[in-house]
Every structure is written in C-alpha cells, then in structure tokens.
C-alpha cells in the first residue's frame, strides 16, 4: 500500500500525479519533451536509456513500463531491450549507444562520477553534444521518477500483460497527464 492516500488500483506514477496534478503537469511535460520531442537519439534509444537507469535503481514499475515502450519502438529488434537489461556490455547495441549507456549508468550513481574520459569515449564513437546532453538529462530525470514512485511506495503491478498495454499506450499517445477520478 502506498505511503499516502492515492487513488486505489492506479499504478505507479499515474496514481501520484492524480493525487497532485499541479506537479504532475510539469513532470509529464518533461517526459514528453525529453522522450518524444526533438532529439538526435531515436525514441527507442531514449526509452532504452530510461529503462536501463530504472533497472539500475531497482525501480520495477519504471523499468518494466519503459522497457515495454522500448520493445514496441524497437519492433523486430525488441530483444535488444532485454539483452541490454541482462548485460549491457554484451548486448548487440552499437558501441556509441553503449558509451552513452555507460554515461547514463554513471549519472545514476551521481553526477560527479561522469569523467572527461567517459565523454571522450562517446565522442570518439560520434556522439554529439546534444546526444550527451539528452543522455545525462534522461538518466537524471529517471533518478527522480524512480525515487518518486518507490519513495511513496506506489502500486507496482506484477502482471507482464499490464506493462505491455502501458508500453503500447506510451508509444501511441506519448505522455499525457491522466485526468483525476471524479
């Protein structure tokens, strides 16, 4: 049960933004701009970074929902998502994306963990400033979302089918603030 009185049966962050839509609005705007707005990184890559950071933070709700969205976006190559979550270094994603995921993993620990050498490594694989910026901010943002969702002990469904439906919705509709229950 959640630590505070949020709408019953509503999972994860949705229950929290329904409890407090005033903060929900900029949170959903941030997710929409960051994960669906203009970026040299594909939507699939951005969802994968989000799922990877959530995995490192042990936030099951965010990991499974964003992994589901990433699987939808990767289509025929959806196994990529599970490969990265199992062992990023052995996965078949590009070396450039690995270098970005490595930076994301460092941001997950703490900002100061990111060293000039990590940035150089990504640059040598053709990552540009915008891609590095977006990677850092996605990793930082999920270090927030994960803590928000778990810090209030919001409801985490366990049925994989529920996440599959969430992933489909996140892919088709993007991040739209849920309306409060009347």
């Amino acid at each position, binding site marked *: 049960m959640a630590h505070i*009185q949020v709408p019953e049966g509503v999972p994860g962050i949705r229950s929290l933004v329904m409890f*407090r839509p005033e903060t929900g609005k900029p949170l959903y705007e941030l997710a929409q701009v960051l994960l669906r707005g203009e970026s040299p990184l594909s939507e699939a890559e951005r969802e994968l970074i989000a799922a990877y950071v959530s995995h490192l933070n042990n936030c099951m709700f965010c990991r499974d929902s964003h992994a589901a969205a990433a699987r939808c976006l990767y289509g025929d190559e959806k196994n990529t998502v599970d490969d990265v979550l199992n062992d990023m270094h052995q996965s078949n994603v590009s070396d450039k994306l690995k270098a970005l995921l490595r930076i994301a993993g460092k941001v997950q620990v703490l*900002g100061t963990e990111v060293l000039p050498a990590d940035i150089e490594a990504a640059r040598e694989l053709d990552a540009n400033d915008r891609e590095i910026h977006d990677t850092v901010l996605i990793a930082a943002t999920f270090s927030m979302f*994960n803590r928000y969702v778990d*810090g209030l002990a919001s409801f985490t469904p366990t049925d994989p089918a529920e996440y599959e439906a969430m992933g489909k919705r996140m892919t088709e509709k993007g991040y739209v603030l849920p309306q409060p229950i009347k």
Partner: protein
Amino acid sequence: MAHIDLQNDLPGIRGPMAYSPGTGKALNELAEILLHDDNNTLSRGERELIGAYVSSENDCFFCQNVHGAMAQHYFESDMQFIDDIKKNYQSTPISDKLKALLSIAGSVQKGGRFVTTEQVEQAKSLGATDKEIHDTVLIAAAFCMFNRYVDGLNTWAPQDRQVYVERAKMRAEDGYTNMNLNK
C-alpha cells in the same frame, strides 16, 4: 569546463537550461510549484531547506548553495544555521516535524525503497499531512535529478558562497518560472 559546449557561460543549471529551453521550461515549472508556490502548508523556507539538504547529501556545490541561500533568506538566518542543518539537523532547533520530513528526504536521496513505513508514520504523528509527505518525497527526488544534471555535465559554479546569498532575494521575488536565465 562543462563536458559539452553549452553555447553560453552561465553558471550551474542555468547553462544547460539555456542550451535546452524545452526541457528547461518544464524543469523551472516543476521548481516553481514545488518551491515557490504559496498554495502549500510547508513554508517556502522549509521546502528550500529540503532541497539544500538533499543537494548537500549529493555533494552538489551549486545546488546546495543556491537553495541553502534561499532557505537562509526565508528564515532570515545566517549561513551557519543552514550549514548546521545540512551537517546534522538533529542537533538544530528546527521542529520535530521538519526533522521527520528531512529524515524521509534523506532516505529518498539514497533510493526510493529506503523510505520506511515507520518514517512516514513518525512524520504523520508529528502532524505531517499526506500532501506534505508527497511534496517532501518529490522535492528530494527532484533534487536527485537537478544535482545529477548540474554535475553530470560538469557545469561551473561560483566559489564565493556570498554570491548565492546576494542573489537569493531576487530569486525569491521573481520565482522560478519568471527566471531570466541571463540575469
């Protein structure tokens, strides 16, 4: 020097916010509701203090000084008082309720799952409402983002701590949404 070319020489989070205005707008709107909006039973000073405390735990020089100076401004205290709270809030004369909320914020800083039912019950028994607990958790979580954004890109920060104190009054008046990043 920042890890990427931010195309400006603004300090701290203002650099990447100017570089990426789309995300900057959402981030400032979040800060406005959480820290500056007066429709809240936690005072602005209490909320800024939670932000400063979490930033101190995350060792983020820029954020802990910006928001420590904001708390100092609202509390009309000196810098030492804020430093004492960051270092060991239990030994300071702040309310037991605020101590209970800082304890929750400290757990959020480590990870969401570190928050215990006992901590939440303790805060509630000292009069904390659900909304106050919600805001405490979200402020702490948001600073785990802001701190990582600021340090993950290696932005620069003025080293003279008095600079932050001098800017606090203007920020308190303007708030975060109306922030002129270049001012």
